[in-house]
């Protein structure tokens, strides 16, 4: 049963949002960015790759679906699938170059590629609409042979569609993270030299993680474009990459459900604070510093600690996906 606890948590959150929230769009956005954050988490939390290029795949996904739905008569599911594939291909290209470098160099490269993609999107006005982005993206119903199976016109109807996709992807990523492949990624994260010495092909493993991450993020970008009806240039901006990363880190790395927490926390806080104080990002910057300094396992880690205290347990729950604090502390010593 324990295997499915996190999936159950996610399902509960998905079911609870319509009961607790007013806006279907905001709820859909939470799930869409949770997808993107999970993609980022797969890299950061499971493989140890800090990527500032997630905006590339997000942007690719939204541009792809926008082009498909506005210019060519492509059925909506196929357009989403294509956006996913394009996200994966983009990740394969970026990954192929960036993975040749390690550590800090890799981080810098992902940001440089994110900027590069931004300027490509800015310059290629024929495809992306440049500064204006692509507008009037329709949100067709889900239909087979002309029969509508699922109307997506209202925000909550769209939320239903997104939540099904979200749960499917969550399930798949959970499977991936617990497969032999996922465990091997953890080995790469915890000790690259050792993983290489055992004989794992690090580059291939990292590239595979990158491709999966790009696919999920591309799907998120596509859903976002369908939700807002826009594929703006800002989807490809540094800010988007940063936002996805911040959600992942604040939620907690190395745990997929935590990404949903991070996304919900970020977007609900943004929704609430941005009306009160337009410079709320200042608080977010401080929050990110605080998480890095004192709460490295994010909201999930905080919740777990509190839960353990309540239970009167001293030792943290033995979740194999989260390294014990002692390992983290000793790893830093080498730096």
């Amino acid at each position: 049963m324990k295997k499915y606890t996190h999936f159950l948590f996610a399902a509960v959150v998905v079911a609870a949002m319509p009961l607790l929230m007013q806006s279907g769009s905001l709820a859909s956005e939470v799930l869409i960015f949770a997808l993107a954050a999970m993609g980022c988490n797969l890299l950061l939390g499971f493989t140890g790759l800090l990527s500032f290029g997630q905006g590339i795949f997000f942007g690719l996904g939204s541009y792809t679906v926008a082009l498909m739905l506005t210019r060519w008569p492509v059925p909506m599911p196929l357009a989403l699938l294509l956006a996913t594939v394009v996200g994966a291909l983009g990740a394969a290209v970026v990954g192929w170059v960036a993975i040749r470098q390690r550590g800090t160099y890799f981080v810098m490269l992902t940001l440089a590629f994110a900027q590069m993609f931004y300027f490509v999107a800015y310059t290629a006005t024929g495809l992306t609409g440049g500064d204006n982005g692509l507008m009037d993206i329709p949100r067709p119903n889900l239909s087979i042979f002309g029969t509508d199976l699922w109307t997506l016109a209202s925000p909550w109807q769209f939320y239903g569609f997104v939540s099904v996709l979200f749960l499917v992807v969550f399930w798949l990523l959970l499977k991936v993270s617990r497969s032999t492949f996922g465990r091997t990624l953890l080995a790469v994260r915890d000790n690259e030299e050792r993983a290489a010495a055992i004989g794992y092909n690090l580059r291939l493993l990292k590239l595979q993680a990158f491709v999966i991450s790009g696919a999920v993020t591309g799907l998120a970008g596509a859903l976002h474009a369908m939700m807002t009806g826009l594929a703006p240039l800002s989807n490809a901006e540094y800010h988007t990459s940063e936002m996805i990363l911040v959600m992942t880190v604040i939620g907690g790395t190395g745990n997929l459900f935590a990404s949903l927490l991070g996304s919900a926390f970020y977007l609900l806080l943004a929704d609430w604070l941005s009306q009160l104080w337009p410079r709320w990002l200042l608080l977010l910057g401080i929050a990110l510093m605080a998480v890095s300094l004192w709460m490295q396992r994010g909201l999930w880690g905080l919740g777990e600690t509190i839960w353990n205290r309540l239970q009167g347990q001293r030792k943290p729950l033995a979740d194999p996906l989260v390294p014990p604090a002692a390992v983290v502390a000793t790893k830093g010593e080498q730096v």
Partner: protein
Amino acid sequence: MNIYLLQVINGIGIGMLYFLLAVGLSIVFGLLRFVNFAHGAFYLIGAYFCYQMTRWGMSFWLALVVVPLVVGAIGWATEKLVLRHVYATDHEFHILVTVGLALAVQELVILQWGPLGDSVAVPDALQGVVMWGSFIYPKYRLFVIGFTAVLAVLLWWVLEGTRLGSAVRAGSESTEMVSLLGINVLRIFSLVFGLGAATAALAGVLASPIRGAEPFMGIEALAVAFVVVVVGGMGSFSGALLGGLMIGIVQSVMSTLWPEGARLMIYVAMAAVLLLRPHGLLGRKE
């Protein structure tokens, strides 16, 4: 006068500023082993402090001296108060804490000076152009080239000719060894971080009369500094110089040939260098 020659000289000026930006990043990386995402933020506040001082009627020259010192002190304090406490954690958090810092600084700047940028006047003494026969060129840009060249020599001397410099270079090889030799490494960490912040701020001050001050110039500068470091080779002083000049000239010449794509081309140049030389032009293999 030949437009391309003009653009190459423009490119040298921009490139020297890029060098100044990248060299601080590179030295900090060499010693502290992480990328400082707040580097662009120091450049940003450098430009804004200069803007504010000139608005108060103080001279640009005073700003040129005072701002790097102030921002250097801020950097020094940041290392002591914030960064020092993440060294024991996972590598990613060193970077993330500076990402948070950069975001906070950017928002503080918007809070104080508003989201729209403003221009900074060129100092009186450097208004106008110089004319040597058919060679006509803005005085201020020539000054930037000369001044940064002097700074480059000075920085090189600090790194190669002083005790601090040898500690920094030795620390880049092995921090443990340097501390075993009885040198207080933590003190050097904060000094070097302060020095990095000061050079970034100096680049900000020098750039402000050319491109003005606006809140998003920090992240833009950070990305360019990354490109320069990637092109030149991480941790290499001459690599930063070569990379900076190359990227500056590419950007400048391309802005004549293909104005919309000039910014794109610096990233294309980076990709090309990476494919040919994965460790940068003058970088060492790890």
